[in-house]
């Protein structure tokens, strides 16, 4: 029998994979991919809790997360293409012109 815990464990494993990707990769495109993984992991958790409690709120949140992810990709990729045209690299180390 698959319970809520199973789904939450899978969700957390996927979240950990995405987090490792964000920490490890130095490429902006890979960073975007890892962000998508994080958002998807959270969506699985929301859907699982939504079924457990027979409550639609979790699924609604997942919908809004998907919308946010879609617009993030549109703007982020536009900026990425701009940066690549200027510097012909998308390495994160090249984005340190604003040293704080």
């Amino acid at each position, binding site marked *: *029998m*698959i319970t809520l815990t*199973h789904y*939450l464990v*899978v969700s*957390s*494993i*996927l*979240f*950990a994979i*995405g*987090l*490792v*990707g*964000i*920490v*490890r990769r*130095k490429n902006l*495109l*890979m960073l975007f*991919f*890892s962000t*998508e*993984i994080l958002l*998807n992991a959270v*969506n699985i*958790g929301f*859907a699982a809790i*939504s*079924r*457990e*409690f027979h*409550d*639609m*709120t979790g*699924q*609604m949140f*997942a*919908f*809004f997360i*998907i*919308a*946010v*992810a*879609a617009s*993030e*990709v*549109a*703007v982020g*990729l536009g*900026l*990425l*293409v*701009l*940066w*690549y*045209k*200027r510097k012909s690299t*998308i*390495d994160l180390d090249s984005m340190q012109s604003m040293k704080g």
Partner: protein
Amino acid sequence: MYEIIAFYLFSFLTITLFSIVVFSKNALYSMTALAGGMIFISGFFFLLDADFLGVVQIIVYSGAVMAVYAFGMIFIDTAKDVKEKIKAKRMIYSFSVAIAVLLVVIVSSPIISKNIIISTPMIEGVGNSKMVGYILFTKYLVPFELTAVMLLVAMVAGIVLVSKKMDISLSLKNDYEAKSEFEEGVAK
């Protein structure tokens, strides 16, 4: 029985594919693995009786988002391996895993204490898509409209950022510099 097999199959496939995304050196392989992983994530949604969410997942992620990534990769040379200086520190890895475990504890602690108030219960005998429609257009109408406006803004931003003067480089250079650079390129 069917649910158990499907659950383990989907979890194995998604974890494998997403690991490929994170650890692959080639950007094209990563993107393809990510698209596959998104499809298998929708399998989880179908298992969880969230049919509409699963369909949206396939259409939006595997359709729209992956297409946008593919278009974005036109501008970038993806045949080469991604060169990056990875400082693999064991501490960082264990740190991120520990954060993930902590998040699970945070998420599951209200469930263990059964301290969740059900605000929008599912009605028996009403299909998932119908239920989504009822709730989206009553309780969540204002966020829904705001999401529509946000997507419009993102669409305009994406078009403006990428499409302007696609044949020459733009951004922080002014028009004169960009034009002379373009003419140099033609002369070559």
